[in-house]
């Protein structure tokens, strides 16, 4: 019961917004405005007619909100905020044209953050193009890290965890993703590290913020988080030449039951995947575990993005897909470090990319959640290098017991 078939069953259970009988009709205005289907469904034209005078306020509210956003964005544009296009290599004054898959659109982004001169920077910080990484042998061979390298990984990953925790603490309705990025940026610099995403292949910001239907690589921008949103913050820190990468999906205010289930299931997918990590296990197996758990919950697994090796390079071998029946090469060995970062969708597994060239969204506009850890394979199992600390904020009800 995954992916596309879930859509069919969702339609069958839609109920009339007025009388709660099974619904087979929807308001055309709501469709135009891409408003949620749940409030826009009716059993008959008569019921729709009867509900009309109160229902139409939903349109007004959405249109006013859209105008308000438009005004806010115009103000920002006049202050130098611009829309990101061409993978971060260019900016435009106007919202790029796109058939947005859900309610979310691109918002303007702020100007570039500064990194102090004394911070050690990776080679892409200067001109946006990694040189060492793409040409390294480590793209083909999985590195076995020395005890010294492992110690540096532990240090970096701890800093990355603390940076993410700092970001988590500011999340609430009304905060923009740009403000979250600022927190990440400042916290990383304060710890003496460089925020790896900044200028990586021209990525314009210091972390990825992915709201609702955004799967990953969302660019922090002027949009304010709204009550009911879910938002993933993905942090990677480069400290003393070594990278640590993690992400978590957070609840903004009061979130609906379906979103809570989505986030919890995604958390569990990562948990179950980590549970099988030890020497001798095939990398291919991760996809089987993730897929099994997601499918059982009626959710789908994103296939375009995968886990990756990490260390002195941001991304390197191995590639770890999260879907089943993949041809990933190799088995785990003690001393290897890599990430597992399943992205789980409420609807279809398919993704599309925004005009900014980075933001991946679900093709059907439904929500997506993700969790990620950097892991070390030990002689007997696994060490979660980016694990929660005693100081990490209490944001998941299933962890508070």
């Amino acid at each position, binding site marked *: 019961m995954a992916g*596309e078939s879930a*859509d069919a069953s969702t*339609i069958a259970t*839609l109920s009339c917004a007025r009388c709660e009988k099974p*619904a*087979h*009709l*929807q*308001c*055309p*205005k709501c*469709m135009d405005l891409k408003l949620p*289907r749940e409030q826009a469904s009716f059993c008959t*034209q008569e019921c*729709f*007619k009867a509900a*009309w005078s109160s*229902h*139409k306020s939903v*349109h*007004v509210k959405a*249109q*006013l909100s859209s*105008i*308000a956003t438009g*005004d806010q964005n115009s103000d920002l544009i006049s202050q130098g905020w611009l829309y990101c296009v061409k*993978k971060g290599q260019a900016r435009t004054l106007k919202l790029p044209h796109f*058939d947005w*898959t859900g309610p979310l659109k691109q918002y303007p982004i702020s100007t570039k953050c500064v990194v102090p001169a004394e911070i050690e920077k990776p080679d892409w910080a200067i001109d946006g193009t990694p040189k060492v990484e*793409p*040409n390294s042998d480590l793209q083909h061979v999985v590195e076995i890290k020395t005890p010294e390298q492992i110690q540096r990984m532990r240090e970096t990953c701890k800093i990355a965890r603390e940076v993410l925790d700092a970001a988590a603490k500011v999340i609430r309705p009304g905060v923009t993703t740009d403000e979250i990025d600022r927190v990440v940026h400042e916290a990383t610099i304060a710890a003496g590290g460089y925020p790896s995403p900044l200028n*990586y*292949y021209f990525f314009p910001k210091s972390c990825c913020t992915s709201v609702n239907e955004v799967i990953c*690589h969302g660019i922090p921008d002027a949009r304010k988080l709204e009550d009911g949103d879910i938002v993933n913050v993905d942090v990677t820190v480069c400290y003393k030449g070594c990278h640590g990468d993690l992400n978590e999906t957070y609840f903004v205010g009061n979130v609906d039951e379906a979103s809570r289930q989505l986030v919890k299931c995604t958390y569990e997918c990562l948990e179950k995947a980590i549970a099988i990590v030890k020497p001798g296990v*095939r990398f291919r197996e991760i996809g089987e575990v993730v897929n099994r758990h997601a499918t059982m919950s009626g959710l789908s697994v994103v*296939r*375009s*993005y*995968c*886990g*990756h090796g990490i260390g002195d390079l941001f*991304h390197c071998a191995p*590639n770890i*897909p999260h*879907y*089943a*029946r*993949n*041809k990933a*090469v*190799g088995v785990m060995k003690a001393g290897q470090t890599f*990430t597992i970062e399943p992205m789980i969708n409420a*609807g*279809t597994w*398919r993704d599309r*990319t925004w005009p900014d*060239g*980075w933001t991946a969204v679900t*093709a*059907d506009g439904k929500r997506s959640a993700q969790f990620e850890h950097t892991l070390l394979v030990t002689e007997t199992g696994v060490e979660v290098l980016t694990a929660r600390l005693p100081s990490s904020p209490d944001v998941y009800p299933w962890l508070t017991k």
Partner: protein
Amino acid sequence: MLKEEAEGVKMEDDDEEPPMAIQIQPDVSVRKILSSSDTVSVGVSVITGYLGAGKSTLVNYILNGKHGKRIAVILNEFGEEIGVERAMINEGEEGAIVEEWVELANGCVCCTVKHSLVQALEQLVQRKDRLDHILLETTGLANPAPLASILWLDDQLESEVKLDCIVTVVDAKNLRFQLNERRDSSSFSEAFNQIAFADTIIMNKVDLISQEESDELEKEIHSINSLANVIRSVRCQVDLSNILNCQAYDSNHVSRLESLLETNKSLTTTDLHDSGIRTLCISEPQPINLDKVRLWLEEILWDKKSEMDVYRCKAVLSIQNSDQMHILQAVREIYEIVPARKWSEEENRTNKIVFIGHKLDEEVLRSGLRDCRP
């Protein structure tokens, strides 16, 4: 401004009468998505071979042929790095060649499953109304294996493109010289890799050599790669079904593999070329255990057991406790074993495995296969 716009909005909806409600259907966007998953993906044939062997001649022959197919040819200089920034697309349409430079956006390379080349090819397919096939003509690529690895995608990705076959064009007049040439004692000339990894080999310019020389050459090619389909040609005028729509990497398309493995003629080459690169075929009549087979293959392909270097591997497998014939495909370290179809009642269930590679040890392989018995 806001107030007026807001009032405008309110006015719009002041009608007493609601519009006609619309029948609920799956989202149009979802429908588009669903239907796109039904479309057949476009095959990509990789054309490789030495400069001057006749690759361009082949490409022109295909583009000029009146076969009614829309074929895009991508000419690419692959250096150290397989990346495509710009590619020239020649679209043969009813004989006319339309040249078009296409800017292929550099795909996001971080943590993506699909290489930027694949993303570029997918963009190409999406852009065109109807594309029947893609030819990827390579220059400067000594070894087609990395390209095959990139293009041989998991079925799960439901990509708009799929690897169809690797075609090597060899120059009949110069091949012998190219095979004997060594840059240094530890490396082989590119000709070996191009032959070993090919699904189809076009032996071109046969008009420049005698019949006997052709026969000898074909034997020599088969001694390196017994599985490849060798076609002789003059000016690359070949039957296009040998290059287009071969489906050599399709897990569903087994008939060619089956017929190859059915031949009584032994595929094992005994005349060892100087290079030590050859084809080896081993068989086992009893059904074997799937888990053991995987471990055994991984030891060979991933751990380079006994220093054997396997380039390609294909097999028909009889798996314990299954009524399905399984097939195995491997290109360097990437392999897959999938059930293909049900064994029929009359069929003689057996395992037949073909290895193409360097330093293949027949005894080690045979005993390894025997150990896969349940």
